[in-house]
């Protein structure tokens, strides 16, 4: 398990840890069985993500991806946030070990789940905008780990 300096940095000093009282979009993905749970709190004003916080139960990579993902969308428009891919998260961290790629997927999905929640609260069907459920089930990693 070789983490990049960047991952270790974000793990040691994660940005935006916590909850947002005034969040208008909250999403949680993962499950304890898989060993990772990520919860994202978004505070969106107009089209812009004003604030983000996260809470994560998971490995070092899960915490680091949560941290960097929040940094990558803070101050961005919802549209831009929707474009955030797990690949971009991995790149921003200077790479992740193969077995930890799923953490970056979780980060992407956690943001999408929070955005879905935001749309729902606005009375808008998120499906056409955000896409699939964004849940853990899509990742397939659990099957991998259980089949191991």
């Amino acid at each position: 398990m070789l983490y990049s300096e960047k991952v270790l940095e974000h793990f040691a000093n994660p940005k935006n840890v916590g909850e947002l009282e005034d969040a208008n979009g909250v999403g949680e993905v993962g499950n304890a069985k898989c060993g990772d749970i990520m919860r994202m709190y978004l505070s969106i004003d107009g089209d812009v993500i004003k604030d983000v916080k996260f809470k994560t139960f998971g490995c070092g990579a899960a915490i680091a991806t949560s941290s960097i993902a929040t940094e990558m969308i803070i101050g961005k428009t919802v549209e831009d946030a929707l474009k955030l891919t797990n690949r971009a998260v991995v790149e921003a961290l200077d790479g992740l070990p193969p077995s930890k790629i799923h953490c970056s997927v979780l980060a992407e999905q956690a943001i999408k789940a929070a955005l879905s929640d935001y749309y729902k609260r606005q009375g808008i069907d998120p499906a056409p905008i955000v896409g699939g459920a964004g849940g853990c089930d899509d990742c397939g990693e659990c099957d991998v780990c259980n089949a191991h």
Partner: protein
Amino acid sequence: MERFVYADNAATTKVSDRVLAAMTPFLQQNYGNPSSIYSIGRESKKTIEEAREKVSVALGASPAEIYFTSGGSEADNWAIKGAAATQAKKGKKHIITTNFEHHAVLHTCEKLARDGFEITYLPINDEGYITAEQVREAIRPDTALVTIMYANNEIGTIQPIKEIGKVCREAKVWFHTDAVQAVGHVEINVQDQNIDMLSLSGHKIHAPKGVGALYIKKGIVLQNLIDGGGQERGKRAGTENIASIVGLGQAISDCTQDIETKIKHVSAMRDRLIENALKIPQVRLNGGLQNRLCGNANLSFTAVEGEALLLLLDMNGICGSSGSACTSGSLDPSHVLLALGLPHETAHGSLRLSINEETSDEDIDYIIKTLPPVIERLRAMSPLWDK
């Protein structure tokens, strides 16, 4: 970092100065092939036999019953696959083991299951123990082998080996024990304890990695795992790893000497560590405290994931582990903790601290001081903690 505390001796240990000193001549000057006839070869041969003698003394066996291997995994594979092959010829294709063995045993049994063997996995109780009674009930006329570990690598529980051995002897079933974690930490006597085969590994007792041994009681015939030259009396081919074998001999002598005093001393440190760790809220000790390796503490902290905990401890100078070392790179929760009946989220979050005679009281103090804030910090990040 205030301090560096290595508390992962169950994963591997440092080669001791005495062991290194014993090995060094065989890395360079005395490089003769032990099978060669000329003088430097003959000397190597003699040295190997001295090491064999030391291993046999430590186990209460005779030298002719000791075979050197490349480590614990090879010893386990050889014992189990070798016994299976021999016994299958007599129509015996049933193996009894437990659900908390090391992967070297579990995966080997799974392999045999694919080859048509039937495996009974005895469940441990919630304290991490198997009883001889369970073994007795599981034995069938076609049982080829019982393989049960001496002491568990994650939770440190020591099994009633002597009683299990007795049940096997009575039923005339071969009994193998993976004693990789037990040697040097528990008093062992293969004769008194009715053990037919026993695996051990050097790097858990201050010898180098990549050397181990299998004790095979006289009269038991295993199929070879590694065929070839006549080394190890034709039972394990390959030019002998002399320097490491010498190291193993030295290490096993050292670690079994005055073992009672050592156990007392290390247990006391372990007890103080556990006692203080248990003051942290929502923590549990995994595995019973009664029959437990003197250096093992295994703790679970609600809402804290294991890998993150290890990483943060490492950043504070403490080396521990979560699950066994060879799986900590994977996504799996510990099969041992699942076997104990823990839910998945807890099985992901255990911390194993394994100390030994080199650990100091100050080291224990440092762990006791460092652990609570580290746990608190991770819990502050955890969505499970405020639930």
